[in-house]
């Protein structure tokens, strides 16, 4: 005997399917990981702009990095209307970009712009970020090219000091 499915159940199934597809697509968009070379970062470092840029070096497997990721994510959201840009630069291996990195970003619903730096000759560019940097991650650089000010943090940032330094950068530009 043929069971005739009521219209409402069929409609419900299609609706759930559509919601799933839409969410999945939205998720995929936030998961995007651009692979960049150092010259792409150099463009950001050299470009004269009154937008304060925060370059944050991290990796998905770096425990102290994960501990402070929510802090940067929160700032990225809270200050989206301010002249400050957050760039999370992953030091994960390029071979993991489409797999573990993308997966990590999706699972943790990371909103900030994430790029993966594919520049294996580390010795060539570490000093160009900061001469004091030993190369350990996490590491964070705040830079404002208009007022030519930079502040570098090696290791997890002290959130109070970081906020002070960040506010110093954009307060000056507003006055200008």
């Amino acid at each position, binding site marked *: 005997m043929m069971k005739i499915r009521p219209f409402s159940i069929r409609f419900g199934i299609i609706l759930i399917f559509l919601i799933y597809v839409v969410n999945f697509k939205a998720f995929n968009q936030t998961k995007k990981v651009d692979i960049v070379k150092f010259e792409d970062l150099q463009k950001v470092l050299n470009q004269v702009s009154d937008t304060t840029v925060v370059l944050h*070096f991290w*990796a998905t*497997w*770096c*425990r*102290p990095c994960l501990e402070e990721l929510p802090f940067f994510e929160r700032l990225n959201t809270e200050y989206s209307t301010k002249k400050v840009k957050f760039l999370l630069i992953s*030091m994960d*291996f*390029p*071979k993991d970009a489409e797999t573990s990195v993308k997966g990590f970003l999706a699972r943790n619903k990371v909103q900030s712009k994430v790029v993966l730096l594919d520049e*294996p*000759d*580390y*010795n*060539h560019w*570490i*000093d160009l970020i900061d001469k004091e*940097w*030993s*190369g*350990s*991650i*996490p590491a964070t650089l705040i830079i404002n090219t208009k007022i030519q000010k930079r502040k570098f943090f*090696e*290791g997890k940032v002290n959130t109070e000091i970081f906020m002070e330094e960040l506010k110093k950068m954009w307060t000056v530009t507003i006055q200008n």
Partner: protein
Amino acid sequence: MKTHIKNIKTIFLLGIVLTGLLAFTPANEEHKLSADKGYAIGDVVADFKLKSTTGNLVSMADNRAVKGYIIVFTCNHCPFSKAYESRIMALDKKFASQGYPVLAINPNDPSAYEEDSFENMQAVARAKGYTFAYLQDETQATSKAFGVSRTPSAYVVKKEGDKYILQYIGGIDDNTQDANAVTKRYVDDAVSNLLAGRPVVNNFTKSVGCAVKWKGV
């Protein structure tokens, strides 16, 4: 007479102020910086006595026949260190017989990373068949003395008399992820320079690695 005493007092006070100022000159600050940053090229590296995964206590002085050591601060948990495991073994294979064996030291606080516990160090050394000593820096005093900030980090020392002089600080080569794409073999070149009786050409490089986990921080 009163003016005379006043002048002496003034000169005396000035003297104290000047001495105070001199005590805080940049020269002193530089010393402070290098103490925090560890050994510099040319420094005498103090010997240590650290527990090996074999259970023995190991010092540089134990092996009288060596010309020097390739000291690598590495660990179990860090993907950058893991990527270098076979290359570290290859360095020992190539240079131990020529007088420069590898000495691996784990600088991390094992309570921070379960993978870096002594038992896991022993497991890795056994599983990979390490031909070199893998030491635990329990107090982290040796790591502090070297000024290690990340893993992996390599230091090449050359034996001169009963002293060990630092010849190279830095990365192992220029490609962590892909051993086949390496173009600059920093440690290999440094040791080869020394074996040829020459000073190390490129004696300082930087590399990206996992921050050392210090106790109590």
